[in-house]
C-alpha cells in the first residue's frame, strides 16, 4: 500500500503554461478531481467518484499545476491521525505543495510536523465547492509548501469568488507587491494568555524565538485577551454540532457501504448512516448530536460567544499588525480529548476565520511560530513569512 498517496495521477503530461507551470501539487483525498475516487479516509464514501472538479482543482489546473495525486487523509480531514499523510508528499519530494482542509489547525500542524510552511487562508477566500467537508463555518482550504513563496503563488491562483460557491463572502484577493516588509514598521502582538498556556520550558523557548524577531527589528507587544481560552470550547461545541448535522448527507446508501441486516429500507437508511465512521469521528459526531438535541441552549450560547470572540480578536489588530502564537507539537489523537489537545494552539484562527501561517519547523524542545492576521490580511501575513524565510529568522527552511 502507498502510505502517502491514496491515488496517484496516472497521467504524466505536464502543462507548460500558467503561473503554476512546472509545479507539482498533491491534493487531499476529500478534494474532488473529476473521475478520480473521492474518499476522505472514510468507508462512508468508499467507491464514490467525484462527479466534477473542485473549484480549487480547476484553478490549479487552469494555472498549469500538475496534480501528483490524492494524499491520504484522516477521516473527513478531521485531526491528524495515523492515517493522515498530510505533508509527507512534500517531504518525499513527490510534490512541491499540497492542498488540504484545515478544520481546526490540521494544515498548519501537518506543516510543522513535516518541517515545512502551512497556511490557512481567511475563511471563504478559497472556494470549497467540490470538497467533502465536515464543519462548513470553520474549515478552509489549507496550503502546504516548502517555501512561503509557493504558498503565495498558489493562493493567488486559487483565491477569489467562484460562482458555484454561494457561501463565500464578497471579497476578492488582491496580491500586492511582494516587497514591503520593513521590520521596524511592524508591531507583532503576543497574546499573554496563549503564552501562559504553554509548559514552563516551552514558554522559555517561545521567548527566545520572540527575542529573535525583536533582534530582526520587529516590535513585539504583549496583549491580553482574557477570552482566548474560550476558543477551544466554542470550536468544540459549534464545530461538532455543524459536523453532526452536515455529516447526515454522507448516507452510505448511494455510495459507500450499506449496513447489513436491516428489517426494511427505512431501517437500512438509518443503520447505514454513520455505521462505517471510525471511532474518533463517531465520538465527535455524537458529541455534536448531544449539543444539538440535548443542549441546544449551549450551542446557541457558543454561537453568541463566537461572535464576541471575533469582535474581540479583530480589535487586537487595532494595536498590532499581526499576532504571533506558539504552536505545540501534537500527538496523534486517539480520543476527543487528544483531538482538542492537538488543536489548542490553532483552533482560534478557525473560530475567527482569520488567516494563519505556521513557520517551519518546531524549534528544538519548543513551539513553532504561527503568524495570524486580521481577516483578509492574507497577503501581508504571507509577505511576512517570505521575509522571515529569506532572513532565516523564526524558520530554518
Amino acid at each position: 500500500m502507498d502510505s502517502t498517496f491514496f491515488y496517484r495521477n496516472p497521467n504524466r503530461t505536464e502543462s507548460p503554461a500558467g503561473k503554476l507551470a512546472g509545479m507539482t501539487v498533491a491534493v487531499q483525498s476529500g478534494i474532488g478531481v473529476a473521475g478520480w475516487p473521492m474518499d476522505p479516509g472514510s468507508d462512508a464514501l468508499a467507491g464514490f467518484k467525484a462527479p466534477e472538479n473542485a473549484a480549487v482543482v480547476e484553478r490549479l489546473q487552469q494555472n498549469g499545476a500538475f496534480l501528483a495525486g490524492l494524499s491520504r487523509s484522516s477521516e473527513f480531514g478531521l485531526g491528524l491521525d495515523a492515517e493522515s499523510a498530510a505533508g509527507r508528499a512534500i517531504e518525499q519530494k513527490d510534490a512541491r505543495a499540497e492542498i488540504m482542509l484545515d478544520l481546526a489547525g490540521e494544515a498548519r500542524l501537518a506543516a510543522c510536523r513535516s518541517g515545512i510552511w502551512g497556511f490557512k487562508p481567511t475563511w471563504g477566500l478559497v472556494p470549497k465547492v467540490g470538497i467533502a467537508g465536515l464543519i462548513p463555518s470553520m474549515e478552509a482550504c489549507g496550503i502546504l509548501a516548502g517555501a512561503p513563496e509557493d504558498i503565495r503563488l498558489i493562493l493567488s491562483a486559487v483565491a477569489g469568488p467562484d460562482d458555484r460557491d454561494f457561501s463565500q463572502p464578497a471579497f476578492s484577493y488582491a496580491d500586492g507587491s511582494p516587497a514591503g516588509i520593513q521590520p521596524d514598521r511592524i508591531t507583532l502582538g503576543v497574546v499573554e494568555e496563549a503564552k501562559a498556556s504553554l509548559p514552563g520550558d516551552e514558554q522559555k523557548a517561545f521567548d527566545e524565538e520572540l527575542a529573535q524577531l525583536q533582534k530582526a527589528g520587529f516590535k513585539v507587544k504583549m496583549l491580553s485577551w482574557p477570552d482566548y481560552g474560550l476558543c477551544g470550547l466554542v470550536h468544540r461545541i459549534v464545530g461538532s454540532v455543524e459536523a453532526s448535522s452536515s455529516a447526515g448527507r454522507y448516507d452510505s446508501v448511494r455510495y459507500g457501504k450499506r449496513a447489513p441486516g436491516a428489517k426494511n429500507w427505512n431501517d437500512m437508511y438509518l443503520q447505514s448512516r454513520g455505521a462505517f465512521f471510525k471511532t474518533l469521528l463517531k465520538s465527535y459526531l455524537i458529541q455534536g448530536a448531544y449539543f444539538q438535541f440535548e443542549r441546544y441552549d449551549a450551542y446557541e450560547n457558543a454561537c453568541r460567544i463566537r461572535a464576541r470572540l471575533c469582535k474581540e480578536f479583530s480589535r487586537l489588530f487595532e494595536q498590532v499588525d499581526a499576532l504571533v502564537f506558539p504552536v505545540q507539537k501534537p500527538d496523534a489523537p486517539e480520543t476527543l480529548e487528544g483531538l482538542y489537545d492537538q488543536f489548542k494552539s490553532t483552533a482560534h484562527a478557525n473560530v475567527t476565520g482569520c488567516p494563519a501561517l505556521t513557520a517551519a519547523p518546531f524549534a528544538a524542545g519548543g513551539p513553532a511560530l504561527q503568524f495570524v492576521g486580521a481577516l483578509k490580511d492574507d497577503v501581508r501575513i504571507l509577505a511576512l513569512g517570505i521575509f522571515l524565510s529569506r532572513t532565516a529568522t523564526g524558520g530554518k527552511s
Partner: protein
Amino acid sequence: MMEFEAVIGLEIHVELNCATKLFCDCPNNPGDDPNVNTCPVCLWYPGAAPRLSQAALDKAALLCLGLNAEIQSKSAFDQKVYYYPDLPKGYQLSQAHLPLSRGGWIDITDEDGSVKRLRIHHIHMEEDVAKLVHEMEGRNPISLVDFNRAGAPLVEIVTEPDFRTPHHAMEFLKALRTQVRYVGSSECSMENGTMRADANISIRPKGTSQMNTKVEVKNMNSVRHVGDAIAYEITRQSAAVQAGEPVVLHTRLWDPDKKVTLPMRQKFEGPCVPDPSVPPIELSPDEIEALSKRLPEMPATRAERFVNQHGLSAEESTYLSSDPEVAGYFEELLREGVQPRAALHWLTTQLLPAVRQRRQELSQTPVTPARLAALLSMLAKDEINANAARDVLSSMFDSNDAPAEIVKAKGLAQVSDASALEAMIDQVLAAQAAAVADFKNGQSKAAGFLIGQIMQASGGKANPKVIRDMLTRKLSSVSA
C-alpha cells in the same frame, strides 16, 4: 352537555412555479421521467454547494407581499434534521429561526356574512424532498427514490390559531389560492399537489381562552377534505374529552375513503442548526420597496374597482376577480369595446363552460378576447342574433377564421330586411289563424308563439326584434 369550540391553525406548503429548483439549475419539473432533473447539488453529493435561486426568492417574496406579510430584512436557512429515505442527506434546508416574512392576513366571509380576518404567523422558504416510489419487481416489492422533486422550491405559510370552524379553513385556502395565483407564484392546486395543507386542531370549552393539546392532521388532497377532516377531528376530540380521555400530542392522517383520521408514525425530527453554506438573505428597504411595486392589483381591490367602474354587483365582481385570468380576459373584452354586462354574461355563461368542456386554459384558447369581442360587436349591431352568436362561438374553437367570415360561411347573418321578412310573416299568419285569433282575443302569449314560428321559418336567421315590431304593427292594423 358541555359545548366545545375548536382552535385551528394551518400549515400550508405551496410549491413555487419556478423554472428551476431552489438551490441548483435543474428544471423544476417533478413529473418528468424519474431522476432526469438532478445534479450533484440536488442529489447532495459530497462537495456540492447550494446556490439560492433569485427567481425563487422573488416569487416567495411576492407571495408574502400578496398575503399582506412583512418581508424581513434578514432571513436565513437552517438545517432541519430528520432521517427518512425521502431525505437521504439527513436534513432539509428550511428557514426555522429567521423566516422570510412575519405577519400577514387574509379576510374571508364568515358563515353569517361578516368579514373575518385570519392572521398569518410567518412564511418561510424551504426545499422539497425526494419522492418515494414503491413498486413490484416480479414478486419482490422494491422501493425507489425519485430525486426530481428534491430541492424544488417551497414556501410554508404558518397561520395563527385564529380558525374556529371548517368553513374558516376552507375559505382561507380558497382565498389564499386566489391571491397566490394573482401574484403568479404558484397554481396552488391541492389536487395536483402544488398546495398541501396540514391542520393543527385542539378543542376547549366554548368561551374559554385556554390552549389545549393539539393534534396535527395531514394528507388532505382537496379543500373539501380539509373541511371534512377538521369537522371529523373536532367531533372525535369532543367525544374523547366528554368520555374523560386525554388528548395527546400526535399526528393523524386523513383517510378520504373512510372519511376518518388515523394516527400515524412520527418521523424523527431534531432542532434546526443554522446552515453555514447558504448565506443569510439580506434585503434593503429599497429592495423590498421594489418588490412591492411588482405586486399586481390584488383581487379585493380589483373587485371593488369592478363595482365602481363597471357597475357590476359585489357578488359578480368578486366572482370575476377571483381568477386573475378570468378578470384579465374580462378587462380585455372591455378594452375591445364590449359593454360590461355583455362581457360578464358571455364570458361566464358561454365562454368559460365551453373552455372547460374542451379542457383548455383560458390563456391558451383560440377564442381570444379580440375574437370574442368581434363576435359580440356583430351581436350588438344586430348583424346576428344570440342563437347565431352561440353557434359561431362554438365554431371559433375549431377555426381561426374571423367571426364575420364564419357567420358568412354558415349563412347566419340576421335577416332584418323588411321585404324579405314581410313575406315570411304573412305566410305564418295565414297558416296560424287560430293563434292570430287568440292574440286578438287578448292572449298575449300567442305573440311569442307566432314569433317562434316565424323564426323557425327563417331558419333562425330572422332578427327577432324586427319581427316583433313588424308583427305588432301587422296584427294591430288587421284588428283595426
